């Protein structure tokens, strides 16, 4: 598995966990009757900060853990090659395109809630949900492209 694939796998795990956390928190709010703008927007903040911090930490940890595993395996100075070549760039671009398509569909579905006479809070809640889901779908498509080839 290349460095890029490891990074995408870590991102996929992170965003799946954040998506799960978000889903559970929203569900708890609805169950507990605390589904109001203050709590929802606080959750927005937590999720966005979590996404940024976890992505940065994940990248650093991937680097460190890869180096340690390689050093143990080869018993030599670790040689981490994290260059991004043309294939990595194309896969990244295709993944980004899929992420945008998924998010666009998500935004459209979120807007539909207005047509169904739902309050704006539902739309805002769904926007973040589909944003996280689009990131997960993008990561899965990148991994698929690495495995399957194109």
């Amino acid at each position, binding site marked *: 598995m*290349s460095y*890029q*694939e490891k990074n995408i796998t870590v991102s996929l795990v992170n965003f799946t966990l954040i998506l799960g956390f978000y889903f559970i928190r929203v569900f708890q709010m609805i169950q507990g009757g605390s589904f109001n703008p203050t709590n929802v927007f606080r959750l927005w903040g937590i999720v966005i900060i979590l996404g940024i911090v976890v992505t940065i930490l994940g990248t650093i940890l991937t680097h460190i853990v890869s180096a340690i595993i390689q050093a143990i395996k080869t018993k030599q100075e670790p040689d981490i*090659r994290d*260059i991004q*070549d*043309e*294939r*990595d760039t194309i896969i990244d671009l295709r993944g980004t395109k899929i992420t945008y398509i998924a998010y666009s569909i998500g935004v459209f579905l979120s807007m539909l809630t207005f047509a169904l006479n739902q309050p704006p809070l539902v739309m805002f809640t769904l926007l973040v949900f589909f944003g996280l889901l689009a990131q997960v779908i993008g990561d899965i498509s990148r991994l698929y492209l*690495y495995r*399957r*080839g*194109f």
Partner: protein
Amino acid sequence: MGKSRVRNNIRKLRFFRDEMTQQQLADKVGVTRQTIIAMEQEKYSPSLELAFRIALVFDVPLDQVFSYDAEDDSN
């Protein structure tokens, strides 16, 4: 998706260059080993620039490294 129509002799050419490793070739042309593997398995068609760089490493004309399978076009 899947197999590319661009065929190549990279594996054979590596063999005739004293069994050059995929990593050595990758370092010489400035890509990752995974990209060389994908090309050898015909899962990835390189850019024209990378194709020329690979041909230069083996010191052979481009058409001795890469060829195009036109049969699929007629189907």
